């Protein structure tokens, strides 16, 4: 059953139901019939679940949250919304497992927002006392992420450098599947 933004449930299918999490959103789901997906460049996605309830979720944020006039936003907000949604569904904070993905530095010469996002996400998890059990941060490649909240399994597919341009499109609309170029199964 899916919980959260979609708010719909459906029966078991052999093929998992894919829910794409776009920039600035989060989604909470449970069960083995759901896979949460996203595509990341410099953005970071946190995949968080409670292994006892089998409920988990994914967010996708663009910028870290740091102190400053415009700073109390983005990553902090995104993490809080996801955590609150999980806790409301009965997850317990002390059981939560976190996997972090993304934060790539795709283009030389531009500021390293991906590095800042990665630093923020790791610091957030550490400061909040959450368990960081895996993931893949930084690097110079864009990634497609699949996350099964029911099992906690995650798969990262690195995209070819030429495919980074799809991320520009993604900021306007969900990206259509592109050809995989480096699948890597994690955990």
């Amino acid at each position, binding site marked *: 059953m899916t919980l959260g933004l979609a708010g719909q449930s459906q029966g078991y299918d052999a093929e998992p139901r894919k829910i794409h999490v776009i920039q600035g959103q989060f989604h909470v789901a449970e069960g083995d019939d759901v896979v949460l997906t996203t595509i990341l460049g410099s953005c970071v996605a946190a995949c968080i679940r409670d292994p006892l309830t089998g409920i988990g979720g994914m967010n996708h944020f663009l910028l870290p949250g740091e102190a400053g006039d415009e700073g109390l936003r983005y990553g902090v907000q995104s993490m809080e919304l996801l*955590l609150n949604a999980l806790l409301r569904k009965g997850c317990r904070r002390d059981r939560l497992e976190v996997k972090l993905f993304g934060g790539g530095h795709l283009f030389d010469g531009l500021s390293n927002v991906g590095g800042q996002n990665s630093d923020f996400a790791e610091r957030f998890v550490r*400061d*909040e006392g959450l368990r960081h059990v895996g993931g893949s941060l930084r690097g110079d490649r864009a990634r497609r992420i699949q996350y099964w909240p029911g099992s906690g399994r995650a798969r990262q597919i690195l995209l070819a450098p030429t495919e980074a341009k799809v991320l520009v499109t993604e900021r306007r609309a969900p990206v259509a599947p592109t050809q995989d170029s480096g699948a890597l199964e994690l955990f």
Partner: protein
Amino acid sequence: MPSPSSIPCLVVDDQQTMRSLVRTGLQQLGFRTIHEAPDGEEGLRHMLARPVQLVISDYNMPKLDGLGLLRAIRSHPPIQKTAFIMLTGRADKELVQRAVQFGVNNYLVKPFTVGTLKEKIEAIFGVLA
């Protein structure tokens, strides 16, 4: 014109990161005495032991949420007049109406800027020095 340095505050939020951000925002505005609590129960214990003049509290918290903390403060005469700003994760009209019924002084929807934080505080205490 009140000086922020003369207004002791308590920031109540279950997320350390958010408490740190609010603290940093308050420090930028000149506040110097800033205490923290990770949930409403701890916040109330702190208030009863060491009252402050301003409480900035999250709504979503374990044990005792922001509304519970607000009600508890308003029911304890020694601290019932403490200024209380509620932090909410979204613009929830019903929540704000309930908070108003319980005597909240102002509310702040996350994400917010230091400028907005200042406006909300000044709406209670007047223009800060």
